[in-house]
């Protein structure tokens, strides 16, 4: 009888995830020509060309810088906010909602708002910098600042995600643990270091993995804020694949790129996958 329950999901997954992935893997061995409407088998040439392409490695480098710095700041800030909020206070729920707002907004709306604030001439950030006596910054049009500007935007939007996860697990730590530690003369730093941090470890690991997976695929923010530029200073792996697939219509080449990306993501999230299999076995 279970087939009644499972059929829709299994059919959808087969048609719209399993089949496309095989299709992508298959296409990656062809050179597809849309104008002549024909494809030629080229073996692993697409893969060889990508691996030799300096622009691809530039995209990998940008993606890694983006992932490491954004995720690191999100974890630190999110944890700090959560610890700050983990005490009795007036209007706690209201303040919590305010902190959550950034992650609820459509990423495109967020990117556009920040683009407006980053504008060189009329942007409010440059105005404020000037008021406190610092010079204007070419946020989005200089190679030194563009990636940083996008990272700041991502940190703004996704710190609340870490905040929410950490706050949930902080509230699950029994107060009695801290009380007995204080009776034995522990300082608040020791309480944090030897009670809070070890108990938060599983949550922080999960937050680290989920944020890594999500920042690794970043596309919307680059698309809106810089279009991958200036030059290709903010081009990420997804953007690189998008450019070949949907601007130049080198479908085979883009498919090969996306297969390489799948392999990279699986490598990065190896721990998460292992956990997934463990929970799958436990259920």
């Amino acid at each position: 009888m279970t087939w009644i329950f499972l059929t829709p999901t299994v059919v959808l997954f087969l048609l719209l995830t399993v089949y496309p992935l095989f299709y992508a893997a298959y296409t990656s061995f062809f050179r597809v020509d849309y104008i002549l409407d024909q494809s030629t088998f080229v073996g692993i040439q697409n893969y060889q060309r990508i691996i030799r392409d300096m622009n691809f490695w530039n995209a990998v480098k940008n993606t890694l810088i983006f992932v490491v710095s954004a995720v690191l700041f999100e974890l630190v800030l999110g944890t700090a906010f959560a610890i700050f909020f983990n005490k009795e206070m007036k209007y706690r729920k209201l303040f919590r909602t305010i902190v959550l707002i950034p992650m609820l907004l459509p990423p495109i709306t967020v990117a556009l708002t920040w683009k407006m604030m980053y504008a060189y001439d009329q942007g409010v950030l440059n105005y404020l910098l000037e008021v406190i006596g610092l010079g204007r910054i070419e946020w989005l049009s200089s190679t030194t600042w563009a990636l940083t500007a996008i990272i700041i935007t991502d940190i703004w939007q996704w710190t609340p995600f870490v905040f929410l996860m950490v706050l949930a697990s902080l509230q699950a730590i029994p107060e009695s643990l801290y009380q007995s530690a204080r009776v034995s003369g522990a300082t608040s730093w020791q309480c944090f270091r030897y009670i809070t941090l070890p108990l938060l470890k599983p949550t922080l690991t999960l937050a680290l993995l989920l944020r890594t997976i999500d920042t690794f695929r970043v596309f919307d923010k680059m698309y809106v804020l810089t279009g991958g530029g200036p030059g290709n200073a903010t081009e990420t792996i997804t953007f690189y694949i998008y450019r070949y697939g949907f601007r130049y219509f080198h479908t085979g080449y883009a498919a090969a790129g996306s297969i390489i990306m799948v392999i990279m993501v699986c490598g990065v999230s190896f721990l998460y996958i292992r956990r997934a299999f463990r929970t799958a076995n436990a259920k």
Partner: protein
Amino acid sequence: MSITRFEENRLHQVESKWKIIGNRGLFAGIMAFIVVWSLFPVYWMANNSLKGRLEQFSSIPTFYPHAPTLENYHRLFQEMGFLGTIGNSAMVAFVSSVLAVAFGSLAAYALSRYQFKGKQVLLAWILLTRIFPPVAFVIPLYSIMGNVGLLNTRIALILAYIVFNLPFAIWMLIGFFSEIPIEIEHSAQVDGASPFQVFRQIVLPLVAPGLAATAIFSFVMSWNEFMYAMIFIQSPDLVTVPVALSGLVTEYLVLWGPMSAGGILSTIPILVFVIFLQDYLIKGLTLGAVKG
């Protein structure tokens, strides 16, 4: 002796009073920082959406609209057909989230109650689809949708969003189903109900709040999605809100005013929904790994 102790005590009290005031000041300062940090960009968008064209481009930005006007909203609806765009987004998000919850609840029920061949594979695949980058699906799906003539239709987007929401929906719903005591279902089965009857008439009503939460969660995810929407849809009368907004600020055209107005409108359904289900949010985003 007693006098000195008295004075010592007083000194202590005064000191701790200052400490309390200092702590409170620090606390309020940090709180103010967090609130400004979280809200300023949203405020700035709202502020700009109410400014006229001149004020928009003044070299000294104004921190509140000196001559508030609704012209940006007016332009958005009158000249840019934004109402239709909102309708597209709402329709695609609504249909895909209802279907994701319908299919997801069936699958989640089987996964939480029955043992069957290939169960581990299915569970692992659900998690893997969450991990795989969307661009890996977009490229083959674009060709596949093209081959079956679905490109540039709402159906293509709806299908993509169902699949993209199913892993979240299934994982959230497994959590809700496993909170129901199984004894209720056993007694119904003893009375001769079929598994499907048990599911429809007994289990589903019990998880109604969970179904609602999951549906809203899927709605938000679809409403916010950008890449599929931009690639699958070309006709201006079918585009969704994020795609329409991104078209207002390009290399050739910068319409901060209407963009801000549209940005504010794009957040309203999300905020209304989410304030009602904050507590479920984390469960969905972490695939049930953290209970909020």
